[in-house]
């Protein structure tokens, strides 16, 4: 069953047609990659999924509910978490606090005025955050300010924050952009491990072919705002149209 359905989505920026009639469906519990050359409309598509942009036409259904016109926080509350290209974390807060916030958000919803309780009294939430830190291998960094983490750790923390909410769909926007090879491989391993341990759907936008081919089960190739082909990694590799539009540059 498809958990995310994108139907006939178009988006125009002035004279530029960023997306034209994009159709795409992401199967539940799969890892789906969206690749394409620069300017293919990958980020625009992603922003249409999370409520940052409103497509001109078409529909986006998550679990058969439309997400169009909703605020990012509402879409998150439906079960979609997003990892950004440059890690978006709470830099001035400690690693532990970073982990607590999404868990509070999941339990209490978009707003709750819990101004008189202390954080320590929320034992269940603290425990969940500790488990998640353990899983992300960051227990020893819990009192550090998130801004002082290394790039790889920031990414780890961000993924951990997203996972702590048990999302049904995890969206990753070029998660290894600008990373050294070792960090990239760590991130790939982490994502593989996440996939093995949980029922989660992962949609990933990526530039790096190494990452795409080590993770994805399905690949959609986007070029000039339209999906060119959608297939398994093996078939994508040899596809003449894809070579021409994308891989050809590198080959």
């Amino acid at each position: 069953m498809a958990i995310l359905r994108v139907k006939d989505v178009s988006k125009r920026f002035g004279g530029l047609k960023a997306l034209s009639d994009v159709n795409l469906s992401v199967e539940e519990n799969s890892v789906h990659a969206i690749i394409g050359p620069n300017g293919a409309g990958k980020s625009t598509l992603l922003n249409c999924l999370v409520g940052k942009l409103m497509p001109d036409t078409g529909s986006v259904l998550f679990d058969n509910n439309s997400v169009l016109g909703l605020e990012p926080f509402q879409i998150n509350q439906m079960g979609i978490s997003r990892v950004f290209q440059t890690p978006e974390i709470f830099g001035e807060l400690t690693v532990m606090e970073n982990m607590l916030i999404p868990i509070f958000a999941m339990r209490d919803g978009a707003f709750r005025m819990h101004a008189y309780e202390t954080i320590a009294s929320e034992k269940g939430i603290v425990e969940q955050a500790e488990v998640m830190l353990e899983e992300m291998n960051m227990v020893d960094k819990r009192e550090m300010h998130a801004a002082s983490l290394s790039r790889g750790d920031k990414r780890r923390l961000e993924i951990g924050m997203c996972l702590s909410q048990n999302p049904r769909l995890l969206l990753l926007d070029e998660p290894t952009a600008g990373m050294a090879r070792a960090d990239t491989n760590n991130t790939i391993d982490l994502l593989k491990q996440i996939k093995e341990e949980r029922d989660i759907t992962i949609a990933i936008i990526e530039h790096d072919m190494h990452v795409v081919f080590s993770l994805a089960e399905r690949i959609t190739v986007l070029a000039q705002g339209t999906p060119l082909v959608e297939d398994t990694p093996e078939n994508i590799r040899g596809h003449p149209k894809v070579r021409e539009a994308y891989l050809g540059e590198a080959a």
Partner: protein
Amino acid sequence: MLGLNKKDTSLLIVVALLTMLAPFILNPFPEGSAMAQFNAGYPDLMQRFVIFGIFAIGFNILFGLTGYLSFGHAAFLGVGSYSAVWMFKLLSYNVVPAIALSVVVAGLFSLLIGFVSLRRSGIYFSILTLAFAQMSFALAYSVLSNPKFNLTNGETGLQVYADDPQILQGANAPDLPHLFGLPMRSTYTMDLGAWSFDFNAGYYLCAVVLMVVFYLAIRIFRSPFGMMLRAVKSNQQRMNYTGLNSKPYMLAAFVISGMYAGLAGGLMAAMDPLAGAERMQWTASGEVVLMTILGGTGTLIGPVLGAGFIKYFENIFSKINDNVLHSWFSFLPDGLEDAVVFVIHPFIGKGWHLTLGILFMLVVIYLPGGLVEGGQRLRGWFRRKKKGADDAPSGKTEPAE
């Protein structure tokens, strides 16, 4: 204690001791001595220390936690004062309903202003709050003061007149603000040798209120809600993508700080039953920003220190005049004495703003964390020095072995 951790409990105890013993602490110099003019332990000034401390604590909940800089908080202070005086006029001189109403009205007013201003962030938010505050000032100063509808009494300021209804004012109740019969002005003066200490009922009311709201501020700072407010400051994008709606969090912080300001305004009127429009002017809003930054933005005790510091300067430093200077430097040769006084002259008396401005610049440049950071650095420096002294002997023995 009281659900606080050890560090916060000791902070609360320190604040309690400082406020309760303020009449002693602020009057260290004997009466009639040359230094007596630096004594700040008279009721009027002590009340102002505490009231502006409350104002700054509230402002810090908004600015320190969320990073949203409001330039219009004096409007809430003014609204609080007007509400309190209206309570004096209509009900009675008892300060309890007056202070309660000032908090409620300031809360409602800040809900309205916050709802509109928080549609924008950064500098635009600051400008919107400034605009609202100046509009409130204009309303209070002239628009809402006309023969048909006189809410604020304009330039003269709102005050209680003999023909006001005061429907609950008992026949025996004091004819000035009181707490169930205890007049706010009543002062007990204790003479100890050359020293004299004033214990003022109004001051102690303010001090108790300060302690309560300081405690509440600690609770807010340490609560999940406080953490969310810091998250707003740190990364609003991540917050929204984490399923949190930052708008109501900010509005709640805005209203809470507005209520603190209203409380300060109400207390001000309770100490002196008069409310003027100048309390709402933008300079008053700017003052609380200075207090918070000077003391240490985002710290618990900082705003109180900043408020005390600025009020001390305003009231004590401004009293130093050339005569005082001449008496200080009279040991110098005549020509030199005049020269020194001439150099210092622009910085004292009416020039206290100049000194304050320089100090403010120095703090912002060298101590971005305000006076609190200064204190921390000083402590660290002493610790290292002490540690160094302990280490020194062992360093000497090593080569001998």
